């Protein structure tokens, strides 16, 4: 057994160690075993028993997936149940047992091969891929032929294992990850925003993706370490490395438990000033996880994934089912739904968006929505329909000028009238807010804020645009500094302009999740911090261990300094002097 270390992208933190289980569960046999004629009836009975057990298994799984993930993910199991009960399929298996006097294992394998060939001959790629559904069901029956000793390699159902796959379809991911026996995930393809990555994060399953060819490097008996924190996968580690990671795992698990405890504490500073941690999420499934980390609402719900679910454009019902589900599960707390931020580099296959020379400065977010009004209307209608319980808010991304707000409002009113005519009920007082990510908008925040009900500052884009730095570009990323005095002046101006008008203001960007930056924002008067939920406990910990007065004073002094580094040093020094525990974070995630 060779020892290999692979680098990938860590998309869900934590460490998982265990044996490999491939996502293809197919383990058909190539050996034909003839049985005596007298045993044929017994063999058929064994086959039917296995089919019954498979049915129970699928029904159980379906119930599980619909409660944990929602109805729409469970449909694939309906399909599998129908395949199981398909007369053509099952009678083909029985026929082989009867006519060839072969064991059921061989019959299942033969029928599987027949269907693989049949589906392979189809012209359409989608229908060709359905062969995996057939072999999924047949191999489940196969596995159920033996009750006590499940066949080797097909035993992932009962044991806890590491799931290794080239790629997982959303339905597969939902199904596999909700079964509760996946220790970690390692995939050839995928990125941090792939459906599997998001799901893994929400279920606290360590995951590394983008490993290129891990499926070719591992065999089914291999032992794997998946380090989702550092993005590393180790195949067949020697004992010393195994021990090292065991220690790392214990440390992480302890840290994680510690964080969860913090999540339950009240969000107030030492001098009883209230603050409000909110969560940025991408899937309705993430709500419970966000709450478990202490989120007091969803500050940013990114709606892009709705467009990634299918090969076609989402319908109003697709949007609505997601929004109403999330509104219900968050109620009575608020959820801020950001209208779609696509275009630019976040392209969609369905839309055939033209390549632009400079996508970051191109047709994206609200610019895209105002150009594709039908899509925008569909989304607005669905959001409005989900707003009846009055906890839904709208966020318009990438506003540059006042005129855009005017256009959005006009369209918004049209859609509202439409719904009223159709006698569809919604929250008539639903507020409207914008995201400030463009420096030009930041500089006129005092004007913009008068037009809307609240403001959300997207610091990641704002800083990139303001400093003219692409932080993924290694040659210039050193210039990306959230504490650049100019960034701080800009953000301070937006926060103060909003508060002066009595409007709510939130920061949803990495600044809100970084303890030092969060303290500065708090000093500016910010009270709503929206971030990836896993960072909420650490921000709570920091803010709970300081006094507003100390922070305000330190921040005021820091604003007179010349460089980001001076500012950082000054704040740390001043805060620690009064509150030595402010930055006690334990191990970083």
């Amino acid at each position: 057994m060779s020892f290999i270390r692979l680098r990938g992208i860590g998309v869900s933190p934590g460490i998982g160690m265990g044996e490999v289980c491939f996502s293809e569960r197919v383990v058909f046999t190539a050996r034909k075993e003839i049985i005596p004629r007298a045993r044929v009836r017994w063999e058929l009975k064994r086959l039917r028993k296995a089919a019954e057990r498979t049915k129970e298994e699928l029904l159980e799984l379906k119930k599980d997936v619909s409660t944990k993930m929602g109805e729409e993910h469970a449909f694939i199991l309906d399909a599998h149940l129908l395949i199981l009960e398909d007369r053509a399929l099952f009678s083909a298996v029985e026929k082989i047992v009867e006519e060839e006097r072969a064991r059921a294992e061989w019959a299942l394998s033969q029928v599987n091969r027949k269907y693989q060939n049949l589906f392979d001959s189809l012209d359409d790629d989608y229908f060709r891929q359905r062969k995996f559904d057939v072999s999924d069901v047949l191999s489940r029956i196969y596995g159920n032929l033996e009750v006590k000793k499940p066949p080797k390699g097909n035993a992932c159902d009962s044991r806890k294992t590491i799931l290794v796959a080239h790629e997982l379809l959303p339905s597969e991911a939902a199904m596999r990850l909700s079964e509760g026996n996946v220790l970690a995930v390692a995939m050839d393809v995928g990125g941090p925003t792939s459906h599997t990555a998001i799901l893994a994060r929400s279920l606290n399953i360590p995951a590394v993706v983008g490993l290129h060819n891990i499926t070719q490097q591992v065999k089914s008996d291999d032992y794997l370490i998946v380090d989702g924190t550092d993005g590393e996968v180790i195949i067949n580690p020697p004992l010393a490395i195994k021990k090292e990671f065991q220690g790392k795992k214990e440390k992480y698990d302890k840290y994680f438990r510690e964080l969860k405890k913090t999540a339950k504490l009240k969000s107030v500073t030492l001098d009883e000033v209230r603050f409000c941690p909110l969560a940025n999420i991408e899937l309705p499934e993430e709500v419970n996880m966000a709450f478990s980390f202490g989120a007091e609402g969803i500050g940013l719900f990114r709606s892009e994934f709705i467009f990634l679910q299918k090969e076609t454009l989402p319908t109003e019902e697709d949007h609505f089912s997601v929004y109403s589900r999330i509104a219900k599960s968050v109620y009575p707390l608020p959820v801020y739904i950001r209208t779609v931020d696509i275009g630019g580099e976040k392209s969609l296959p369905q839309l055939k968006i033209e390549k632009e020379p400079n996508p970051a400065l191109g047709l994206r977010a609200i610019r895209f929505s105002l150009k594709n009004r039908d899509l925008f209307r569909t989304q607005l209608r669905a959001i409005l329909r989900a707003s009846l319980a009055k906890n839904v808010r709208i966020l318009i991304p990438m506003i540059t000028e006042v005129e855009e707000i005017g256009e959005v409002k006009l369209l918004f009113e049209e859609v509202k009238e439409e719904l009223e005519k159709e006698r569809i009920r919604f929250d008539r007082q639903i507020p409207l807010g914008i995201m400030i990510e463009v420096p030009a908008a930041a500089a006129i925040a005092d004007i913009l804020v008068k037009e809307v009900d609240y403001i959300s500052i997207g610091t990641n884009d704002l800083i990139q645009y303001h400093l003219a730095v692409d932080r993924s570009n290694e040659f210039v990323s050193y210039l990306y500094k959230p504490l650049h005095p100019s960034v701080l002046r800009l953000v301070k101006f937006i926060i103060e302009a909003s508060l002066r008008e009595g409007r709510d203001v939130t920061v949803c960007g990495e600044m809100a999740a970084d303890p030092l930056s969060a303290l500065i924002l708090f000093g500016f008067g910010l009270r709503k911090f929206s971030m990836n939920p896993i960072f909420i406990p650490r921000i709570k910990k920091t803010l709970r261990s300081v006094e507003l007065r100390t922070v305000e004073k330190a921040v005021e002094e820091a604003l007179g300094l010349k460089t980001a580094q001076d500012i950082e040093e000054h704040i740390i020094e001043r805060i620690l002097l009064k509150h030595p525990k402010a930055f006690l974070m334990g191990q970083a995630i």
Partner: protein
Amino acid sequence: MVEKEIVVKNKLGLHARAAVKFVNMANRFSSAVKIVKDETEIDGKSILGILTLAATQGTPIMIRVSGKDEEEAMNALVKLVNGNFGENE
């Protein structure tokens, strides 16, 4: 026996989700249901039959129903297909 030719209009064609709905609907009736595409005839109560038809958007199919409740069955199935399987597109 009744038969009717219709065109699959929804964007994804007779894909898995639609096939599930079709089979479940067909199973509510005692009549035999067949779907014919080009030269191929398949059992309309078999999901694998439907999936291997690979009927994409715009494909004309013939539905054949025979049995005691053939009229009701045909109406229900045609309504399902013409209603794009409740998918709005």
